[in-house]
């Protein structure tokens, strides 16, 4: 609200109050501003939309490439993991088939096989032989597992049923993540034994960490329950939980978008066949496509900044343009009204002068005839009638004087419409003006005092124009005071070269917000009572033209004082 009142154009609230022939400035402003903004912003918006669309296309293209890369990488890594497991499973199958139960029960033989396996494939932690009763018959490795019975354990049952078991990752006694591969060998007589090896996950971790090192990437294995089987860069150590629900069967590589940890992620999944493992590869597209996002944000910022700049400049420009138009129209209108007003005054003046002139000659004749009669009566001998005649004749001559005073005043007022500089005694001039208004003041019982010190010099000015100035101010004062009110006129010096006339009334006063504007053309607080709002504007113009100044002081309910300051010598 306060921002708007600060930038609101001066004509904003005037549009509705002006006459029919004047412009609706608010509407003109809106049309101009709208057109300028449309012409300036439309190309910018179109260009931005096209650019935005192209960026979007490019972004999607980049994203498509990223998805393709994830699919390829997941597919290849799964293949490598399957190979890793197959190799070790095949090696154990081969060992269990090529060696009899008795051979494998021989600790030294088993140890030789174990050493060969470690050397050829790596990752083997231990190797053990379990008989069909679940008893650990032979064992090579770091733990003392010989004699341990597995008959009731799930893995034993699964190996017995399916011939193969690959376990989930567990930490074991040394707190190192590993898993188990168990291979069953069934003899012709139906008896069987199981070769069980513990595999270190270090080799798998090495393989996956190579992928995780790529920018914004993370690769790890999870089991069916979503428990981490290898460490994850984003989700932590082994046996932590990965929250995303995984598909049961992911024979093909699946790619999915999801958000977690406050990041947008793209995940690729694939089940490692024959194992409880699912390979997960995560990529952060925001990091990878940061360059594109940054471009998009920069473009948006540029568009917004340009739009704000265009709006601001257009607002300022349009407001300035329409304000100038409005002010020019106001001035033109004021001048036209002033001309009209002056012409009206001149017409009234000419009419009054014509009437006064026509009256003046008969008055002069009456004056002479009555004068002659008085001379003749005076020459006669004294009688009762003589006094009566003389009284009547004095009365006629007195009336003639009054009429001639009126006609001279009218003639004088009309004549002063022409600009003419002469020596003016302010006391006489003020009296002339008061002669016009005296009757009204008398009828309304308004007291008028005039205070003029004797040392006030005569001034060089235009009599008619000054009469109009004081007539206007006194008319306003008479309109402001109530019947029985008071108007005080005082003349005083203001420095060696200037003389001031103050006209103070004890009337209604002017509101503070109106005092600033009372000299503006068309500003009137009496428009409902026929005020044109031009009187004081014209007064101001005349005083300035005469090289003077006019001030106003007012308090509501206390009254108003106008002070007109005039130069003693007319400025050149």
């Amino acid at each position, binding site marked *: 609200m306060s921002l708007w009142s600060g930038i609101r154009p001066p004509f904003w609230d005037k549009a509705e109050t002006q006459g029919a022939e004047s412009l609706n400035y608010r509407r003109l402003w809106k049309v101009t501003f709208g057109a300028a903004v449309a012409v300036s912003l439309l190309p910018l918006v179109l260009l931005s939309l096209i650019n935005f669309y192209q960026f979007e296309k490019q972004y999607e293209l980049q994203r498509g490439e990223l998805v393709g890369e994830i699919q390829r990488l997941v597919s290849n890594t799964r293949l490598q993991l399957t190979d890793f497991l197959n190799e070790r499973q095949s090696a154990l199958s081969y060992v269990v088939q090529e060696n009899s139960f008795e051979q494998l029960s021989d600790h030294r033989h088993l140890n030789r096989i174990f050493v060969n396996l470690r050397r050829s494939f790596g990752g083997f932690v231990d190797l053990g032989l379990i008989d069909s009763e679940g008893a650990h018959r032979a064992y090579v490795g770091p733990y003392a597992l010989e004699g341990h019975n597995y008959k009731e354990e799930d893995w034993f049952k699964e190996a017995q049923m399916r011939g193969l078991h690959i376990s989930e990752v567990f930490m074991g006694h040394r707190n190192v993540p590993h898993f188990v591969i168990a291979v069953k060998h069934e003899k012709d007589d139906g008896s069987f034994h199981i070769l069980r090896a513990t595999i270190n996950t270090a080799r798998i971790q090495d393989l996956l960490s190579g992928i995780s090192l790529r920018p914004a990437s993370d690769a790890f294995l999870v089991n069916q329950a979503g428990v981490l089987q290898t460490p994850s860069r984003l989700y932590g150590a082994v046996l932590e939980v990965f929250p995303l629900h995984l598909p049961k069967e992911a024979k093909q590589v699946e790619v999915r978008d999801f958000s977690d940890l406050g990041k947008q992620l793209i995940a690729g999944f694939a089940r490692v066949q024959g194992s409880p493992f699912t390979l997960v590869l995560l990529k952060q597209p925001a990091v990878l496509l940061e360059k594109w996002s940054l471009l998009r944000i920069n473009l948006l910022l540029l568009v917004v900044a340009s739009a704000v700049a265009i709006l601001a400049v257009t607002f300022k420009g349009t407001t300035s343009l329409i304000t100038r138009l409005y002010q020019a129209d106001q001035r033109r209108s004021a001048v036209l009204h002033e001309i009209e007003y002056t012409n009206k005054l001149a017409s009234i003046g000419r009419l009054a002068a014509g009437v006064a002139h026509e009256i003046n*000659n008969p008055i*002069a004749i009456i004056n*002479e005839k009555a004068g*002659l009669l008085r*001379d003749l009566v005076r020459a006669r001998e004294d009688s009762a009638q003589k006094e009566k005649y003389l009284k009547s004749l004095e009365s006629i001559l007195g009336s003639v004087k009054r009429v*001639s005073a009126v006609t*001279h005043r009218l003639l004088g007022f009309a*004549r002063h419409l022409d600009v003419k500089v002469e020596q003016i005694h302010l006391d006489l001039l003020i009296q002339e003006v008061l002669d016009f208004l005296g009757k009204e003041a008398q009828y309304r019982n308004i007291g008028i005092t005039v205070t003029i010190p004797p040392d006030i010099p005569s001034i060089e000015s235009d009599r008619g124009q000054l009469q109009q100035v004081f007539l206007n101010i006194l008319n306003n004062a008479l309109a402001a005071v109530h019947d029985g009110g008071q108007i005080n006129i005082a003349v005083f010096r203001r420095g060696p070269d200037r003389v001031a006339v103050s006209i103070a009334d004890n009337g209604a006063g002017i509101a503070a917000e109106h005092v600033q504007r009372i000299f503006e053309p068309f500003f009137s607080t009496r428009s409902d009572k026929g005020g044109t709002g031009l009187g004081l504007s014209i007064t101001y113009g005349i005083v300035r033209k005469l090289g003077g100044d006019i001030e106003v002081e007012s308090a509501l309910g206390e009254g108003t004082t106008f002070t007109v300051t005039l130069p003693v010598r007319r400025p050149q």
Partner: protein
Amino acid sequence: MRVLLVDDEEELVSTLSERLDLRGIESDWVTNGEDGLRLALENDYDWIVLDMKMPGIGGLETLQAIKRRRPSTKIIVMTGHSSSQDREAGLRAGAQHYLLKPIDVEDLIARMHQVQETEVS
């Protein structure tokens, strides 16, 4: 003292003449500028009282014509207007006084004597 009165209003000028006679001042009167000029040149008046606004030859032209031929003639101009233009034009053309109509006969006589006394002194 002999005075010529020139004004287009016969009623005014004849009455004024009569009032001057009553005060012992001999006066002639005419109602237009042409007659005024002729009489002014034919006779030797002490004062000519001249209206500024008259049909035909106006007061100012009559005044100028008299002053051209007889510069020493003393003239008082009178008018219905209190126009400073008329007054200044009259005084510039050589008139000794300016009076507003309706005129006061005592004032007129006082002015004639005032100028005469100034001349004597």
